[in-house]
């Protein structure tokens, strides 16, 4: 039975919630619990933690009782690891380039890198898109909304 269980998506969904709930429950006991009349900072999180653990176990329970369906893969049929990486790398590049080189380069990278996630993306197309967004973005955020972010800089 355990063999089919580990194939089910809800096994992981329920498991994740149970673990999360248990972690919260344990952590909330490190804060002052207080009494019901004078609730301390730990009481409400403790209640939520217990609720989440129970709900997580119910999801697990439901996973055990339902038959295995043919659509149980957690990852989509064609995992887009590269595209996902590109999307997440965009804002990370924004942080690094923004800290050290200013808004213009950060914006360019933040559009350019995610654009490569698309299978049909070309170097030129992405560069034009990134340049366009940079131009209008800088215009809007730096000149209209006046966000304090240097356009160009070197070092922090």
């Amino acid at each position, binding site marked *: 039975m355990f063999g089919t269980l580990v194939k089910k998506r809800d096994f992981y969904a329920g498991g994740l919630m149970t673990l999360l709930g248990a972690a919260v429950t344990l952590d909330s006991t490190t804060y002052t619990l207080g009494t019901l009349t004078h609730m301390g900072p730990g009481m409400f999180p403790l209640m939520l933690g217990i609720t989440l653990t129970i709900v997580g176990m119910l999801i697990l329970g439901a996973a055990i009782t339902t038959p295995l369906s043919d659509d149980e893969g957690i990852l989509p049929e064609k995992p887009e690891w590269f595209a*996902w990486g590109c*999307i997440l790398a965009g804002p990370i590049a*924004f942080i690094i380039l923004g800290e050290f080189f200013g808004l213009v380069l950060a914006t360019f990278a933040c*559009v350019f890198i995610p654009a490569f*996630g698309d299978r049909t*993306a070309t170097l030129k197309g992405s560069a034009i898109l990134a340049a366009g967004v940079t131009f209008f973005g800088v215009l809007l955020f730096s000149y209209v909304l006046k966000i304090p972010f240097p356009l160009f800089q070197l070092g922090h």
Partner: protein
Amino acid sequence: MFSTALTDLWYGFGVALEPHNVMWCFIGVFVGNMVGVLPGMGPLATISILLPLTFGIKPVGAILMLAGVFYGSQYGGAICSILLNLPCHPPHAVTCLDGFPLTKRGRGGAALGICVISSFVGASWGITEMIFLAPILVEVALKFGPAEICSLMLLGLLAGSTLARGSPLKGVAMTVCGLLIGIVGSDIETGTPRFTFGIPNLFDGVEIVALALGLFGIAEFMKSVNQLSEVDTKYTNVKFSDLRPTREEFRRAVPAMFRGTIIGSLCALIPGTGPTIASFISYATEKKISKTPEKFGTGMIEGVACPEASTHSSVQGDFIPTMSLGIPGDAVMALILGALMIQGIVPGPQLISEHPDIFWGLIASFWVGNIILVVLNVPMIGLWVKLLTIPYKYLYPSAMFFVAIGVYSTNNDMFEVGEVVLIGLFGYVLLLLDFHPAPILLGFVLGPRFEENFRRAMLISRGDIFVFVKHPISAVFIGLCVLLIVMQIYVRLRSPKSLPTEMALPGDHHRKVSEAAE
């Protein structure tokens, strides 16, 4: 009562018709209509992107604009559904069923025309409902003590998480997660930092903009990248003159329109049943009472008019509990409440008396906005149709920039950008595990107030946990909560299979592509 409502409404028009407010309203509905048309962008992502831009403007303008995005996107979404058979926005999924066959027969223009009329009728009714119902609700709600507020919030959270799409249990899990994320930061009474992992940036709590953009921006982009196929624009050549329905079509659509309106407004009163459910119920009803139910799905104009009217009536009605009680019915409303809170306005029953400009201005702006939308949609239909062809591969990278700069501008700090990446990753994992992250936002927004009122209720009752069933009004809410849970269990035990298929129909990108391919 009637005359006070009219006076207040008159005052509201005064606010809404101030030139800068008309401008914000226009920008809101325009952007909303645009993203409604664009496949792959939803109102949630758009409102989260625009949210940081509203920090600098006055609360009234900010709310008018963000609300405009929401109902504007409903107009645009219908275009996408009828002409492309793409249910980009869940409430319009059923409109595809009869809208697209009409398009294939060359009556797509008429379907769009009927759609605009039904939308306007539905919205007008929803707004009227709000004008008269909200003040009554407020009068009742002002008498509520902490125990009543607490039970009401519990009911709202429970309804929001179990009646929405997907498994009710998973919805509850998401709501609890949202409540937990809302706890992050300093405790309101003692100042103890909770779940901050020792990071000083988290002492103020998680930024709502980062949460919304992570869950509805980054996570959605990760889900949709390389999944949306090229749109088929074979049928999208619709001009202004095509919009006019024939006499016969109009005659059949009118009664359906009114039935849809009523169903939508009833759905709006139940928290958690937003426009999506309203449109499904109204389509089913229309099919049931029709003399020719077998013809539905082949291009019946009633099948377009009814769900569209109910969607719009429920969209406007959704604002009732949000603005009068401070309890949002879904994630969009939670975001709008979040925007109010960022502006320093405490949501709740006192909002109408303390900030009448916001409340009545918003209502009046609904009329203004809906009229703008009709004007935008009828003569400019050609422009919207052209927008349908913008490929997703240009959309999401541009949106990524707005995500990054948007969260940065909340505190002018790079920490939030890191936060949004982590939340986005977490959100995508949740999506992969079949969780719908929308209730997270609901829990997040209500969480702090829920805890505060819970503590207060406990303090007043000297730690008596049964206070919630001892107060009659509170007991009614708790009773409704129990009823809701029992109903869910009953439905599950009776037919474990039918529920997921019914509920999970719209909104899934993978499914959308396969449907579009047919």
